[in-house]
C-alpha cells in the first residue's frame, strides 16, 4: 500500500460504527485485504484509504468500546456514509446502535447515507457460509474451510460463541428488525422515507469470515456516495486554485483500478 499513502486528501469519508466485537475491523479487513484474520480490539480509530475508480475514499474504522465513545462524533464529522454494524447473534448490539451510536452521526453530512449491517451471518445462516469473494473463489474456499476448523477462529471470544461447521446459532436479529430500525433512523434524521434510499437496499447481512455480502456492501456504498464526491469536486473547481497534482493522479491511477 505504499503508493496509496502518498495520495492527497480523500474525496469522501465513510465511517464504520457499532458496538465492540460486532466485527467492524474484520469487515473492513475482509474487503481491503480479502481475507479474514483474528483482530484485536481497535484502539481509537483506524484510517484507511480505498481507491475507487478515480476517487479516494477514506474509511474510518472506529473502536466500539465505550472508552472511546467521546471520539465518535469527531470521526463522523463530514461523513458521506455511515455503516452501522451489529451482530446478528446479539440483540443488544442492534439496540446499542440506536442508544449509543445514532447520536454520534449528528456531525455527519446532511445527505449522509446510512447502511445497517448485520455481521456474523455465517453463524446463523448456511448460505452465508459459502464464500462470496469474486476473485480467487476456489482458493478462498479452502481457506475458509481451514478457518472453520479452528475453533478459536472467532475474532471476538467474549461476546460471540465459537462456530463449529454445521452447528447453527440462534439468530437474534432478523432482517425485519433492521428494516424497522432503518425507518427510525430516517425519522431521527428528519428524512422522508420516500425520498431516501429504501430500507431493502440499505440493510445488509454479511459475514466477514466467509466474505458473504462484504463486497456488495462496500461497493454499493461507494456507488451511492459518488454523487456527493462529484458535488464536492464541483465546489472545488469553482475555487480559483487548481490542484494540478490531483488531476495528474486521476489520470495515472485510472487504468490501475479494476472496478469501473
Amino acid at each position, binding site marked *: 500500500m*505504499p503508493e496509496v499513502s502518498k495520495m492527497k486528501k480523500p474525496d469522501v469519508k465513510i465511517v464504520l460504527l457499532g458496538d465492540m466485537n460486532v466485527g467492524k475491523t474484520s469487515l473492513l479487513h475482509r474487503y481491503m485485504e480479502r481475507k479474514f484474520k483474528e483482530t484485536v480490539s*481497535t*484502539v*481509537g480509530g483506524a484510517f484507511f484509504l480505498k481507491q475507487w475508480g478515480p476517487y479516494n475514499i477514506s474509511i474510518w474504522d472506529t473502536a466500539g*468500546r465505550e472508552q472511546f465513545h*467521546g471520539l465518535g462524533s*469527531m470521526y463522523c464529522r463530514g461523513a458521506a456514509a455511515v455503516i452501522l454494524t451489529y451482530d446478528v447473534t446479539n440483540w443488544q448490539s442492534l439496540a446499542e446502535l440506536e442508544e449509543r451510536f445514532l447520536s454520534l452521526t449528528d456531525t455527519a453530512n446532511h445527505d449522509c447515507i446510512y447502511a445497517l449491517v448485520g455481521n456474523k451471518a455465517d453463524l446463523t445462516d448456511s448460505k452465508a457460509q459459502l464464500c462470496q469473494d469474486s476473485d480467487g473463489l476456489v482458493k478462498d474456499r479452502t481457506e475458509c474451510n481451514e478457518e472453520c476448523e479452528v475453533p478459536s477462529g472467532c475474532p471476538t*471470544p467474549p461476546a460471540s460463541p465459537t462456530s463449529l461447521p454445521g452447528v447453527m446459532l440462534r439468530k437474534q436479529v432478523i432482517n425485519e428488525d433492521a428494516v424497522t430500525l432503518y425507518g427510525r433512523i430516517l425519522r431521527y434524521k428528519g428524512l422522508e422515507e420516500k425520498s431516501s434510499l429504501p430500507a431493502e437496499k440499505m440493510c445488509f447481512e454479511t459475514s466477514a469470515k466467509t466474505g458473504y455480502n462484504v463486497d456488495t456492501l462496500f461497493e454499493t456504498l461507494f456507488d451511492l456516495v459518488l454523487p456527493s464526491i462529484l458535488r464536492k469536486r464541483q465546489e472545488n473547481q469553482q475555487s480559483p486554485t487548481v490542484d494540478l497534482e490531483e488531476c495528474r493522479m486521476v489520470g495515472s491511477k485510472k487504468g490501475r483500478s479494476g472496478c469501473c
Partner: protein
Amino acid sequence: MKVSVDIRHSVQHGDGTKPDWDGIMETANHQEGEAAAVKIGDSPLESNQPADSLAASFSLLENHMFPDPVESNGSAAVSRIEPVNSQPPDVSAEHLGLDEKPPSDQVMKLDPEKTKTECQNDVSMQPADGTTEDDATDNDQSDSGEFVVTMLAKAKLEEQGIGVKGRSSPLLEAGTQESSSFTSHRDEDVTADSWRQHRKHVFVLSEAGKPIYSRYGSEEALSSTMGVMMALVSFVQSGDNIIRSVYSDEHTVVFLQKGPLVLVCVSSSRQSEQQLQGELLYVYYQIISMLTQASISRIFEHKKNYDLRRLLAGSEKILDGLLNLVDSDPSFLLSAVHCLPLASSLRDSLSQILQKAITPNLVFSILIAKNQLLTIVQEKTVIEDSRLEPADVHLLLNLIGASSAFQAGEIWTPICLPLFNPDCYFYAYISYLDPPECTVCLLLLSTDKEAFYSVAECKRKIEEAMMAQNSLSLIAKAGTYSVSQVGVSDLRHFMYKPFDVPDNYRQLTQFTSPEMEAPYSSEEEKMRLLDLYRYMHGRIHSTSRPLKLIYHVAERETLLAWVTSKFELYTCFSPLVTKACAITAITKLLRWIKKEEDRLFIRYPPKYSTTPNPSKSSRGGKSDQQDSTDNGFLSLL
C-alpha cells in the same frame, strides 16, 4: 466436613487463642445480612481478637490463592503494615464491611517505626474419611450468603479437586500468547490447580470491592477472592494503617492503593516488595493512560460502585501484554528505555527527517523499530518543562505491541502519558512505515484532537524523505549486538544504565544490553537470568540495606552488580570466573561501552518548535487547551 484452624499469635503469647473454623462460622452466622462477616472484638482490651480476625482473613485468602494441597502443615504469614497513625486502633464494635469507608484523609506518617504483625497460621485441612463433595455443598447452601463460609467451602472444594501439580512457566505462556490469544486466560477455571500455579497474579479492584481486572481467569469468578482482598485492605485501613504486603512461604502478596483503585499482586517469583510494587504501578499507569486519572476519580466520585470494566472492556489484552512484557523485558526493572544500536550518522539523519516534518501542536515524534527506540524528537518548550519519562515510553511501546490492528491503516487515538500529565490526553498517530513487514513504526503525538490530517501529512513527508535516503533498508540492517563484540571471554551478558546525561538535554534514561545468547537462549533460561538480575537489583535497591557492589556466585553463573554515581551495571559471567578476572572484565567492558556510546545510545535528542506561543505548550497551558470534556466520559455520567 471437619476443618480445624490453628492460629497462633507470636506477638502475644505462644499459645494464644485458638479459634477453629466452626467458631468463626458461628460468628459469621450472627451477622445477618452482612456481606463480610468477620467480627472485630468490641472491647479495646481484647486487642488480640482483631488480629486474629485479620489472620483468619489472611488464611482465607491463602486458602483460595495458594492452599498447600498435600501437606497442609502450616504456612507462616508475615504481614507488613505501614503505620500511618500512632494512635492505637479504635476497635469499638466495628464490622468489617465492604461498604464501609474508613477515613483516609488522615493518612500521614507519624511513626517511622514499622509494626510487624506476625501470625503463624497452622491451617490443617483434614477431609474426614468418606466426606463427599455433597457434604461441602450442603454446608455451602445452608449458609448461603455468608461470605466466610462460602469462601471456606469453596476453598474446601478446591482442596478436594487436586489436579496435576505442574509449574507453568510464565514465559512459555507469554510465548504462546500470540497464537492462543483468543482462548485466553479469561476463560481459565479459577478453581483449577493450574490457575493457582501461575507465577504472578495481578488483580485490580475498586474501593467498593468490585473486580476490574485479573490477569488469569474471569473477574466474575474471582469476585469473592477480590472481596477478601478488599476486606483486608479496609480492615487495616480502619486502624489508620495501610497494608503493604503479606509474606508466606511460597508467595508474596503486595497491595497498592492508588486513588479509588486497589491493585494486588500475588507472586511466587521471589521478587522484592519494591519491585512488585513498581510493577503494580505500571499496571495502574496503563489504566490511567487509557482513561486518565481525572476521569477515573470523577467516575468513582459520582458512583462508588461503578463497574470500570465497562470502560476497560477490550483493553484487557493491553494489560495482559504489559504484564508479559514486565516479566520478560528488563526495561521495566531498570526504568530505562532500550534503544536500537544504530550508527550515529544514521540516527542523526533520521532525527533530522522527523525534525523537518512538523505541524502545529505536534509535541513528540518517535521512531520505533523492532520494538526498540530509534530516535525521539521533542517540542522545544516541552523539553524545558519536563522530559518524557521511560515509563511513559514503555506504555507507548506496549500499546503499539499489544495492538496488531495497527499493522494496517493509520491509527488516531487518545492516549494519556501518566507521568507527563495524568489528567489529559495526547492524540497519538500510529502508522507502520514498512507494510507488510511492520517493523518500523512512526508515532506522532499531538495535543490537538482534530489534527489527524495534518499529522498524517507529516507522515507522508517523513516517508518520502526516508525513501529518498534509503533509510528503511539501513534500519533493517541494524539490530541488537552480541556480547562477543566486547571481547571479554568470561562475560555472558550485561545490562548497563548510564546516569551521565549532558546538562542541556535532560534526556531519557536509557540502558544497553546485548542479545541473550547461549546458555540463555531458551525461554526458561532467559527467565532464570532475569530472575537473577531481579535478585541483584532487589539487593542493590533494598530500602533497609542498600548496596553498592555485589559479587554473587550463583549455581550456574557468577554475577556482579555495581552502582556508582555515573552508572548502574549488572554483569553475568561464567561460573568459574575469579573476582579479579571479573573486575578486569568490567574495566574492559566500560571502556568498550565508552567507545561505542554514540552507537548504543541516543546521545543528543533533537528538538523542534511547533508552537508560536511558547507558553501554550507548557504543561499548565496544555491542560487548559485540552479541557476534560474532550475525553467524552462526561457523557457517561
